[in-house]
Each structure stands twice: as C-alpha cells, then as structure tokens.
C-alpha cells in the first residue's frame, strides 16, 4: 500500500503499516510541521555557527593585535612615531610593530567613507600595528612608557571593545544552541501529540489487532514507522529549503568585511544534513513512548 504524504512524496508500507488506515490530512500536517521546524533549525544552526566563528575570530585574531594611535602636530608626528616604534621594539612581549601606510589607512576607512577618500586633506593620526608574542605585554607599563616618550601616543589593545563583543557573540551562539534544543523539543511534542491523536483515532483498529493476536511491538511498529518517516521526510524538505535560503544570502565580502555572513563555511554545510536524521530519531522515540503508553491501557 502506498501512502501519499504530499503530492510529490509517497512511501510503501510494511505489513504492520498497512493495518493502520491512512490518515490523510493529519499525515500532511505532520510532514509540513516537521518541515517548518527543520527550516527554523537550519537558521538556528547557521546563526550559532556564524556567531561561533565571530567569537573565535575576535577571540583569537584580535587577541594578539593592538594599535598605537599617535595624534600630534604635523611637525612632531614623525619624531613621536619614531619614539613610539623604539619603545615598542624594546618592550618584552611585542613581536612586531609596524607603521601602517597611507594605503592601509585608506583601506581601513573605506567601509565608512568610501573608496575616494582624500586622505591628504584630513589630519589623520598615525597608526602602528602591534603584534604580541604568545606571552603578551604589560599594557599598563607600555602606556606609561609611551606617555613619557611619545605624549601623543595612545595604546588601544582592543580589550575594551573586544571582550563585550566576544561575550555577546558567545551569548548569541548559546541562544542558537538553545533555539535548536527548543526546536527539537517542540518537534518531539508535536509528533507526540500527532501520534497520540492517531493512536486515539485508531483505538478500535488497535483493539481488533490485539484480539487477533498482534503483539504490542507489531502495533507500535505500524505507528512508529509511519511517524518516523513523516518526521524524516518533512525535515528533509525543510532542511533543503533552509539550506537553499542560507546559500542565497549575500556573502560576507559583499556585505562588508566587518560582518561575518550568516551561513555555513566549508565543512559546516554538512551539519544541517543531520537535522532530518535527528528529526527521525525524535519522531521514533516520541512515537514509541506514545504507543507504549496507549497500549499499556489496553488489555
């Protein structure tokens, strides 16, 4: 017997499955709900992974980078840059200190002011990019030394703004994970309700099966197989459309280099493929529990 779940989705049932009447609209509703949940799960997963990448990037790449900004009158800036570089070269924990060129400064400002920025007309501070060793440097000590040798120099070790951002990114990642857990729970609840409704609607069928010698395992299998397939197929459809939607989002380069695009990178695209498997597993367990509870009430 073939059961039609959606116009393009059918499956053949085993002997145990055929004894339960086809449920039509309820079946389609289960598939559609599982699809919607899977679609949301793809986005929650993408959000979780994107913020994870963001937190990692801010947490590792920027952790070892600092900037010394020197603002001084035009006739003093060169001397202060040289003094600051000298201080940095002799500071333990500084691996490299390099003055950014005008082109590099332009590139940094481009996202905000556009590509045709007339740098020569602006009194921009000089920027020194500082890379730390793995041990790091004493930021307070370096600030004091810079204040003595180059009064216009300000050390920005990014910690002021990096830490809350990393914390925020990690929180968003946690929210993504919580969303996935909630979606899993809602899917389990929804399938349990649907399975209970199907079991209740087929109480007479179950009674007849028991009377002709069906074991609980046989009866449960009919419902478990059906709902597992519905959960799996719905989640497969939802995951497919979710992945297509994610793939069609503008990529990070187009949106701006500061933003990490919401989506998957490289092997991360394999993760959403686990969603249908998880949905099938959830459906299997939820229906088994519902069937066991219902059958226990029957003699």
């Amino acid at each position: 017997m073939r059961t039609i779940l959606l116009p393009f989705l059918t499956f053949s049932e085993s002997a145990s499955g055929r004894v339960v009447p086809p449920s039509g609209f309820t079946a389609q509703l289960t598939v559609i709900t599982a699809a919607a949940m899977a679609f949301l799960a793809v986005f929650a997963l993408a959000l979780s992974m994107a913020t994870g990448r963001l937190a990692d990037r801010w947490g590792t790449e920027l952790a070892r980078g600092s900037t010394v900004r020197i603002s001084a009158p035009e006739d003093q800036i060169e001397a202060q840059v040289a003094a600051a570089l000298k201080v940095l070269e002799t500071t333990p924990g500084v691996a490299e200190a390099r003055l950014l060129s005008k082109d590099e400064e332009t590139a940094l400002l481009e996202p905000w002011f556009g590509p045709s920025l007339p740098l020569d007309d602006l009194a921009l501070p000089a920027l020194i990019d500082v890379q730390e060793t793995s041990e790091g440097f004493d930021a307070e000590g370096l600030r004091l030394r810079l204040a003595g040798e180059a009064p216009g120099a300000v050390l920005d070790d990014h910690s002021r703004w990096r830490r809350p951002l990393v914390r925020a990114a990690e929180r968003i990642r946690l929210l993504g994970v919580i969303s996935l857990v909630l979606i899993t729970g809602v899917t389990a609840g929804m399938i349990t309700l649907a399975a209970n409704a199907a079991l209740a609607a087929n109480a007479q069928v179950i009674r007849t099966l028991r009377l002709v010698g069906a074991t609980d395992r046989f009866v449960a299998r009919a419902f478990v197989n059906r709902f597992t397939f519905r959960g799996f197929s719905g989640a497969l459809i939802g995951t497919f459309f979710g992945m297509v939607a994610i793939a069609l989002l503008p990529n990070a380069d187009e949106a701006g280099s500061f933003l990490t695009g919401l989506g998957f990178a490289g092997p991360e695209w394999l993760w959403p493929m686990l969603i249908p498997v998880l949905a099938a597993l959830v459906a299997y367990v939820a229906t088994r529990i519902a069937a066991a509870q219902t059958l226990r009430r029957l003699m």
Partner: protein
Amino acid sequence: MIEFHDAGYGYGGRELLTEMSLTLAPGSFHFLTGPSGAGKTTFLKLCYRELQATAGRVTIFGEDTREMGRDEVANLRRKIGVVHQDCQFLDHLNLTENVALPLSVAGRERDDQDLSDLLNWVGLSEQAKALPPELSGGERQRAALARAVIMSPDVILADEPTGNVDWDMSLRLLQLLIELNRMGKTVVIATHDLHLIRQAKSHVQARVLRISNRRIQQSGADL
C-alpha cells in the same frame, strides 16, 4: 483446555459472574445461553483473556491467565479463534486482507490457495475484494468465521454468530461450526436462540452452559 476454578468477574464493585467451575475439554461443543445481559460475552472474554478473572482463576492451555504477560496473551489469542458479535473488521482492508489479518500479525506468509479455499468454504469467493461495509450481515459473520479459523486454532469462540442473520444463514453458520468441531476443534457458541440449539441436536453432541443469577449452570446431559 480451558478451565475455570471458582472463577468470578466483577467491575466497579459489582459482581457480574461468580463461582464458575468448569472445564471446556478438547474437541467439545458447547452452547452458552442465558438472557441478554446475563454475562455471555463476559464469559467468552475470560476465555480469550480480554478480561481477567477478579476471583478464582482461569487456565487456558494449562497456563494461569493471571500470570500471562502481554506477549503471552497475544500468542494465546493466535490459538483461539473468536467470532465477535460485531465482527471487528478493519474497514480499509478488503475481505481477503481482513481474513488473513491473523497471519499478518503473526508474521506468517499467506498461502493464496489456502485463503481461496477458505473463502470458498464459507461461500465468499465472489466477495474477496469487497470492503467490509459492502458486505451483508451474513457475509460479515461468515468472513469473521473464516478469520477465526485461518490460524487453525484449537478453540473457536463465537459470540452470537447468528444474531444478525436470517434462519437459513444461521443454519449455514451452525453447519460450518459443526464441521470445525468434527475436525477436533473445541467450539463454544454464545446464543440465546433456543431454536438453533435444538437444531444442532441432530448433528452434534453439544452441552449447554446456562448463565443464570451470575452463575454457570451446566445442563449436563446432551441436548
């Protein structure tokens, strides 16, 4: 085969059947009679463990029904064919699939020839593909009988099998049950139709169990 040892059954504080002690011996033929509501269906349900005795004990094939697990009950029911008063068909399956249902649930292959012979025996070859709602009362009863015997059970219990059919059909069903008894099956027919019981007299050695005042009274002698 089926033994009642001072067994009784009550529900909601009310005693429906009490102090039943009897044996349904292998190959025997019994009529179970009594007025409507006397407890005939309850007695049959105790025989295939749809109900469990609340007093005394019932043993089926030597096993105490109180100690049976759910899987054991399922296996027990494969050895007892029951013709229910309301037939209990699955309306989305055709007649052949309904008759073969005990084979399906037991995971046994169905032999189409055997199935065809069985439908022929109960006179339903023409209706093999019909759905249960398309069948008449008599056809449903014969189909229920076919389903009851398809596993070749040792015991056949029939609950008012002639309740919804005319006299000719009643005699035909009775004849089928007598044939089964001649094959060595234990047959119990619950009925309040005394004409049917008298009609059986000339064909089979039957004993009558009468339920009266919550107790089983064995008529003892043959009809």
